[in-house]
């Protein structure tokens, strides 16, 4: 299993391929080198062989010329007994063995087709007169067979024995059979040595290759695979620490970048989820607020309608009370009890009348004549009205007007009513002592341009409990008889009717700011 797995691994495949290639390559290389060496050795052997044959010829020359057959035979026998010499023979021109290191051979005639003869004589060709050699196998070692012709020469045919005629070209031949056992042994030893070297070389190469591949490929790949597993398992913080400057390093860097991107994307997704949730919540709240606002407006509107009806109905009887009160008043001299009583009736009727006027202001829904108005001017005229009032003697009125304020489309008298109400409220809040700051500026709301007016007082602030109710009609914190509780409700209605909005920012103990925003009038030039 492990072997199979390791064979299928990248390293296994690479080693198998490279190993096979190296074995095949080195085998071919070593084979040819070996063959070449063997050939060289044989060539040298042949060269020495001929020297040997030459030596035989020269040793027997004297015997030949003086025709001392015994001497020749003895010489041949002596030479033939040397180590490495299998056999030495001399043939005459007819193929008869004249002398031999093996005495039994003498006198035997060699067939013309035997290898000794065919080396020079072939069926088709003219006999060669050059030396020849071949290698034959005898018993368990190879034998180098050398044949050299003995040519006729002056000394031969002029010799006293005149055994050979002058015309004869070849007188016989010398054959030497030399053992190649030593050579073969050496070649065999060399082959074994070379094989061992090759195997050792292959082993070393394999080990080195294995180590290199292991370090360069297997380890990083398995690390990468482990990293992939971890990332797939959701661990996006996993960081691969392969810092090599090769493809593996690049791969690891790419992997780390991918993991980081994945993590970022995942975080973004989670973030989006949260944002979405938050947005849904915000929208829900906004809808709730809008709904509450709608209910509030509807409440105010129906209250307004009711107030208008009530006001209309009550005004007529009040007229009666006031008129008859005045008529009665004239009948009693000032200072009398009756006169004082009637004065109370008239005062209280007037108070009712004021309440109704407030109610009617609140109920007033119709659009007045509107014109482009400079808010700063309206504020200034409102301030001029209050400035001389005794209530404002100890109040510091600070103004911070934006001189470049765009104009708004409005009914200035209604706005003045609103502004007066705001200033009065501020003055009431600080109980006649302190600073009221009025600021005008431009503001952006939902992409639309507004003129913003801020009435800031240094009063005690408004409690959360009261803050919810301040725009409701008849809500007042002033003592009974002092405020109708309609001022802010009426102001709110007027501002709403002008397409604007009213809101409050307050901090207990630090003061309150009432804000009015009116849409900027887009004057056509």
């Amino acid at each position, binding site marked *: 299993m492990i072997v199979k797995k390791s064979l299928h691994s990248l390293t296994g495949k690479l080693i198998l391929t490279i190993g096979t290639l190296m074995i095949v390559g080195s085998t071919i290389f070593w084979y040819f080198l070996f063959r070449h060496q063997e050939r060289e050795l044989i060539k040298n052997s042949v060269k020495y062989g001929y020297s040997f044959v030459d030596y035989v010829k020269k040793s027997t020359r004297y015997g030949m010329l003086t025709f001392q057959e015994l001497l020749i035979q003895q010489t041949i026998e002596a030479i033939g007994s040397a180590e490495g010499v299998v056999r030495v023979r001399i043939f005459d021109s007819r193929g008869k063995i004249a002398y031999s290191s093996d005495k039994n051979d003498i006198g035997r005639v060699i067939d013309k087709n035997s290898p000794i003869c065919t080396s020079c004589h072939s069926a088709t060709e003219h006999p060669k007169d050059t030396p020849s050699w071949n290698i034959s196998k005898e018993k368990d070692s190879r034998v180098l067979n050398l044949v050299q012709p003995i040519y006729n020469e002056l000394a031969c045919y002029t010799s006293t024995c005149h055994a050979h005629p002058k015309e004869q070209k070849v007188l016989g031949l010398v054959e030497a059979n030399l053992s190649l056992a030593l050579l073969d042994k050496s070649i065999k030893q060399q082959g074994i040595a070379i094989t061992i070297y090759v195997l050792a070389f292959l082993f070393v190469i394999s080990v080195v290759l294995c180590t290199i591949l292991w370090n360069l490929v297997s380890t990083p790949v398995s690390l990468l695979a482990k990293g992939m597993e971890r990332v797939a398992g959701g661990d996006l913080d996993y960081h691969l620490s392969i810092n090599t400057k090769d493809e593996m390093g690049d791969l690891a860097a790419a992997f780390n970048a991918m993991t980081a991107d994945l993590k970022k994307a995942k975080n973004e997704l989670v973030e989006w989820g949260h944002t979405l949730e938050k947005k849904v919540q915000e929208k829900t709240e906004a809808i709730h607020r809008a709904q509450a606002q709608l209910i509030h407006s509807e409440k105010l509107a129906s209250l307004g309608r009711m107030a*208008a009806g009530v*006001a*209309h109905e009550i*005004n*007529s*009887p*009040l*007229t*009666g*009370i*006031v*008129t*008859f009160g*005045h*008529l009665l008043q004239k009948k009693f001299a000032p200072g009398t009890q009756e006169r004082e009583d009637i004065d109370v009736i008239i005062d209280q*009727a007037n108070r009712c*009348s004021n309440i*109704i*006027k407030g109610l*009617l202001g609140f*109920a*007033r829904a*119709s*659009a*007045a*004549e509107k014109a482009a108005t400079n808010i700063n001017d309206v504020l200034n005229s409102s301030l001029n009205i209050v400035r001389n009032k005794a209530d404002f003697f100890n109040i510091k009125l600070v103004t911070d007007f934006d001189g470049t304020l765009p104009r708004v489309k409005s*009914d200035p*008298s209604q706005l003045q009513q609103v502004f007066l109400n705001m200033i009065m409220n501020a003055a009431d809040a600080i109980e006649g002592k302190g600073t009221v700051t009025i600021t005008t500026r431009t503001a952006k709301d939902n992409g639309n341009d507004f003129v913003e007016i801020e009435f800031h007082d240094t009063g005690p602030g408004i409690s959360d409990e009261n803050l919810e109710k301040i725009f409701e009609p008849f809500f007042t914190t002033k003592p009974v008889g002092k405020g109708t509780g309609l001022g802010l409700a009426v102001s709110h209605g007027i501002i709403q009717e002008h397409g604007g909005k009213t809101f409050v920012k307050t901090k207990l103990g630090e003061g309150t700011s009432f804000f009015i925003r009116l849409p900027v009038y887009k004057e056509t030039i």
Partner: protein
Amino acid sequence: MSKGKILVIDDEDIVRTSCSRALAPEGFEVKMAQNGFDGLKMIEEEKFDIILTDLKMPDMDGIEVLRRIKEEWPEVEVIIITGYQTVDTAVKSIKLGAFDYIEKPFTPDALIAAVTKALEHRNKNR
């Protein structure tokens, strides 16, 4: 000889009585009608110097009464009595020729002043 003849048109009895009781001691001759139709009929029958008419009445409102009076008797001065004054009704009534408007609840002095002013205006234009 009275200072002037005045007709009060109002659906509310207390308003008519109030006007009458406030103006009569000052030497005005005051007559009353409880709706626009009766009032117009009375104007047809006899001559009035000043008409005081309520703005909000059933069947025919003060604006309509004013329009008809100004069509037929443009020399008669009309003062509108209004339960609640709004700018547009005021503007509308002045445009239609009303001399003045007076808000309920009014004091006898305010009523007398308005009527006296209207009468002076009428006498001047006569």
